[in-house]
């Protein structure tokens, strides 16, 4: 069972981890991740660096996958690399993803989709994925949302999300922590992104500490965002179920199932 944790350093990254690595504004991604890349050889892992191609000569240049030059999605590319690693007898695939904001109209939706894909990929294949975010590229609210979809976290910047959504099994996601007015928008965005790709989203809620009215409204709005979608919450406590009912959401018009 995957569980969220804060890692003291990238040395602690383990099979199936999806790590959010928050870097300071002046930090160099490769310098700060050198040990993670180097450890690939130590453990017999294939290493891929996803990010802009280096502008100067670099020892890591052969490992770089530049998203701008990819044919197809990033997810398809890392899946191919994982399959290759498996065929070639590597223990696993190590992905260092240097995430830079895209030029699209709504970059937040784009990165969220990408991160959820990578989270599912890491959980399903056992690949180790480290997503490096430089503070120079992202503002604090964006970084706080980013950390919500990573079960693991490393870095000097003390950004701790109120809740996390992460993959725990083939068909399900786990929510942990607190979903209140501070995180309701992010929670709704994550659910809408998940529902865009699957008609039913299962959320294990055994470790949800708290759900307020704003969080519940985000849940209801997300469930109604697209037609023929459904969200199933498993392991909800009686207070969550009571508040959902009291809030007027326990009606057929809101395709959400709340189960103990």
């Amino acid at each position, binding site marked *: 069972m995957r569980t969220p944790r804060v890692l003291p350093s990238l040395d602690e990254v383990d099979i199936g981890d999806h790590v959010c690595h928050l870097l300071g504004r002046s930090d160099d991604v490769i310098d700060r991740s050198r040990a993670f890349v180097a450890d690939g050889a130590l453990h017999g892992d294939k290493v891929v660096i996803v990010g802009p191609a280096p502008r100067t000569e670099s020892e890591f240049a052969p490992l770089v996958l530049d998203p701008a030059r990819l044919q197809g999605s990033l997810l398809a590319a890392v899946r191919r690399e994982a399959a290759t690693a498996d065929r070639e007898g590597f223990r696993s695939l190590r992905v260092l993803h240097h995430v830079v904001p895209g030029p699209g109209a709504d970059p937040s939706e784009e990165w969220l989709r990408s991160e959820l894909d990578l989270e599912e990929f890491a959980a399903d294949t056992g690949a180790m994925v480290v997503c490096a975010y430089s503070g120079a590229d992202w503002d604090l609210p964006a970084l706080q949302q980013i950390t919500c979809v990573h079960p693991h976290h490393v870095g000097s910047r003390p950004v701790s999300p*109120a809740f996390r959504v992460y993959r725990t099994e083939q068909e399900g996601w786990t929510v942990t922590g*607190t979903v*209140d*007015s*501070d995180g309701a928008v992010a929670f709704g965005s994550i659910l809408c992104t998940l529902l865009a790709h699957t008609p039913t989203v299962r959320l294990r809620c055994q470790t949800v500490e*708290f*759900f*307020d*009215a*704003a969080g*519940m*409204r985000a849940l*209801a709005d997300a469930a109604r965002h697209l037609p023929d979608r459904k969200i199933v919450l498993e392991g909800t*406590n*009686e*207070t969550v179920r*009571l*508040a959902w009912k*009291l*809030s*007027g*959401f326990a*009606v057929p*018009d*809101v395709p959400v199932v709340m189960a103990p």
Partner: protein
Amino acid sequence: MTSSSPTPLGSNGYRHELYPYSGSDEFVAGAVGFIQEALDSDEAVVVAVPQEKASLLRAQVREGDTVRYVDTSRVARHPGRLIAAWQEWIKERVSEGRPVRGIGESPWDQVRSAAEATELRYHEWLLNKAFAQGPAWWLLCPYDVARDDAALTQMARCHPEIRRDGRTVLSEDYDARAPYEFAALTDPCDPYDEFLYTSGDLPALREKIAACAEQHGLTGRRLRELHLAATEVATNSIRHGGGHGVLRTWSEERRLVCEFRDAGYLEDPLAGRTMPTARQVGGRGLWLVHQLCDLVEIRSTPHDGTTIRLHTELPG
């Protein structure tokens, strides 16, 4: 018994009448007379009174399609829940297209505190606002005059009409345009804890409340419900009350009290007292607060800001 209708009240004909009585015989006589008037006019009746009072009436008037006795146990001692309960109780009868009457009496002899009595009377006053725009119905509120005269005068201020000697007369103490005259909130009991909160402090606020609650044995489901209610109130402070507020917690008379003060003004006195719909954008926070707490006191003026007290009964 016949009752005259001294004046059409409200634009939609909602009538709210106080019935002072003394002893069970007078209670039964007045209430049965009111029901009989309804039956004679083919009107539906909803009876929402304490169980022992309902038993007295059932012996005289059996439940049927026309007269319905409702269970008030879940809401009777929670003034903030009563308007929504009445809306629900009369909804079906109103939809039948028949005129509807109601008989409603709070369990005044079981009231736990002066604060609860004040809130029950305030609820009576708010009923006039809640049904000012509809639907049309007529509520009779029996009230035992064995209680002190001052309390009866306060009740009369909340009812546009009074039933005296079988006749309905206008209440001279009721002024539809006057604001409700609250008594000042009591001072917090010593010792109390204080915590200033602003954006980002909701987890810390919940921890403060948990620490205080656990000292008094409040844990599990009841603590989770208090956390939810407290979060909704504090969120309102942060979003609409000037960005910050002050939490005070203390215990009194086997109750934990959480008080929130901020600079905001809650303009609608009915906020949180009617059930939200699934499509409603906001307005769930205070609704949940009323549903989850044992008693809620709200005082709000443009000059002094808003003070909200959440009362939770302590175990044991």
